[in-house]
């Protein structure tokens, strides 16, 4: 009771209370529910059973972890490919393209206004047998191509395509944060173009690269549409397993356990990366 009265008395706590309640109900409670569900017996719908590790055992025995590995592998590959593709584009946006940068930024942004699924179906029309690409190749060059669609490569392509802006824009910010005089100073001190990049530009734009990579990784590990639409379910990512468990299979505890596993693995990875690259230190804030 005294707790409540102290909250009412302190204006700061009083002002913070609504957002605290909102976060508790909207953010912590669902998370807690998912964790709790993962310890319930399979195929039950309630929190009032004896807690069990049966779901986690099922994941192990039924090889459900393979889909987790696929998700992690696809997400890692997406991040790696995006890092290589986006750095030159971001560099160009900041230093080379001048006023065309605005136009390019718009071109990269506008597709975000169209639903991801619709854009992916667009790619299906592009890649599908006798679609835009194979059809053109066949008509113009007489090239008989195999299947582009429904391959792991197509999934990867879709992920790279969908998550490109999420890598590009943090990276652009990161590169823009390196003052031009810093690059000039390095060059003036004798550094070649490559040395300026290695010694100054890359380390100083690292915060942008790291934020972009983490963002894309976390998003990509939760990707589902790409494997469904472009992959034809040739690869089953963990998100697909989770969806099946919650819907078709009506096995909420198993789905919850898979979700918890995914969250754990991603959190550990993210924390490890953030530990390794201290953003504050890179930014020189300490």
């Amino acid at each position: 009771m005294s707790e409540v009265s102290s909250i009412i008395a302190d204006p700061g706590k009083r002002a913070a209370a609504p957002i605290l309640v909102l976060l508790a109900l909207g953010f912590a409670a669902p998370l807690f529910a998912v964790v709790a569900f993962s310890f319930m017996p399979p195929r039950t719908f309630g929190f009032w059973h004896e807690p069990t590790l049966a779901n986690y055992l099922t994941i192990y025995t039924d090889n459900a972890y393979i889909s987790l590995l696929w998700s992690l592998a696809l997400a890692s590959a997406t991040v790696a490919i995006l890092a290589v593709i986006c750095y030159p584009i971001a560099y160009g946006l900041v230093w080379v393209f001048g006023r065309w940068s605005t136009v390019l930024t718009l071109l990269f942004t506008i597709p975000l206004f169209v639903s991801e699924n619709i854009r992916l179906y667009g790619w299906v029309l592009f890649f599908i047998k006798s679609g835009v690409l194979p059809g053109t190749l066949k008509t113009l060059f007489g090239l008989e191509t195999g299947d582009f669609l429904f391959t792991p490569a197509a999934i990867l392509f879709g992920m790279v395509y969908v998550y490109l802006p999420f890598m590009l824009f943090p990276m652009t910010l990161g590169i823009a944060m390196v003052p031009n005089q810093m690059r000039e100073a390095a060059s003036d001190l004798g550094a070649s173009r490559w040395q300026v990049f290695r010694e100054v530009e890359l380390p100083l734009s690292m915060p942008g690269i790291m934020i972009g990579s983490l963002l894309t990784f976390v998003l990509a590990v939760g990707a589902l549409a790409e494997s469904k639409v472009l992959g034809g379910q040739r690869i089953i990512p963990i998100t697909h397993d989770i969806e099946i468990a919650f819907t078709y299979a009506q096995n909420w505890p198993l789905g919850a356990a898979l979700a918890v596993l995914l969250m754990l693995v991603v959190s550990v990875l993210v924390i490890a990366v953030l530990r390794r690259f201290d953003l504050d230190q890179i930014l020189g804030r300490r």
Partner: protein
Amino acid sequence: MTGTPEPILQLKRVRKEFGGLVAVDDIDLAIGEGEFFTIVGPSGSGKTTLIRMLAGMERPTSGDILLRGQRINDTPANERPTCMVFQSLALFPHRTVGENIEFALKIRNVDRSTREKRARLLMQLLHLPADYYGKNVTLCSGGERQRVALARALAFDPQILFFDEPLSAIDYKLRKTLEKELKDIHRETGKTFVYITHSLEEAMVMSDRIGVMRKGRLIQVGTPNEIYSAPRSRFVSEFMGDVNVIPVEKNGSGAVRSRSLGATFKPPPGPVEDRSQCLVVRPEFLRFLNGPDEAANKLKGRLYNEYALGSRIQYQVRVGDQVFLVERLRQQPFKGSLDDEVLIGWDPENSILVSDE
């Protein structure tokens, strides 16, 4: 400076245009070996463009830059034996003090122990505490950063050091200390320093010679004393600080006349040219007169205000709607009070005739 030193850096009709805009307009200049040369000018005068061309960060549109007789127009900054201290200092925030100083040596593949030895020597020269070697450079104070930047520039033993207003963001007191320190370092190292600033006062303290820039041109080059006591134009004289400038014209009998004041003055000794010009009198050469016979040139005015400048006191005297500044040493007696009618005057030899540009 005695005699004319061998020129280390020569500019021959160096010009830089951006679009149609002329930033640097055909500058000819020779800077001597070991000289402390300062280019002074207001913002937009082209001084930054000029020094960036000298350092190799801009390419001249036309003209030649010669380093010890070798044309270096097309040599990029990283291949020139010169180094610049930037206005922002541009220290690398992800590196320690030691790593910053050693940067140029690391680039040149100097081994670690030699590098550290050199860095520590420079830190000593620049009064940086030895335990700063491993310190994060972002934790250093403003003055310490200046020293780190200077040490970093000195590390690879460049032949010329360029300075792009590095002291402009520093508070007055520290700036005064650093100005003197910089001059000491110049003496200690014997290197050629080329410095740019918008403060002629700063230039006076440090330089062997000063070049005053305006609208892309060097309008006067000389020793601090020459610039101070013999400015050639109204612009240079006013750039120096508080001066009294009276636009005048030649008045037949070896005198000059101010139309706005309706008065005739005796000019300084020497020929008076026929063009429109200005009579410049520094406040310290203007004085209050007790009687009209005490000086050859005089004006009657009203004492409007006074400002204490430390060792001197400055007075604002209004003659009509024109303002004159008069200074006296604090210890000199003076009995006037505000709104008094006063007579001010100066000796012709203490005035300067300059072009009205």
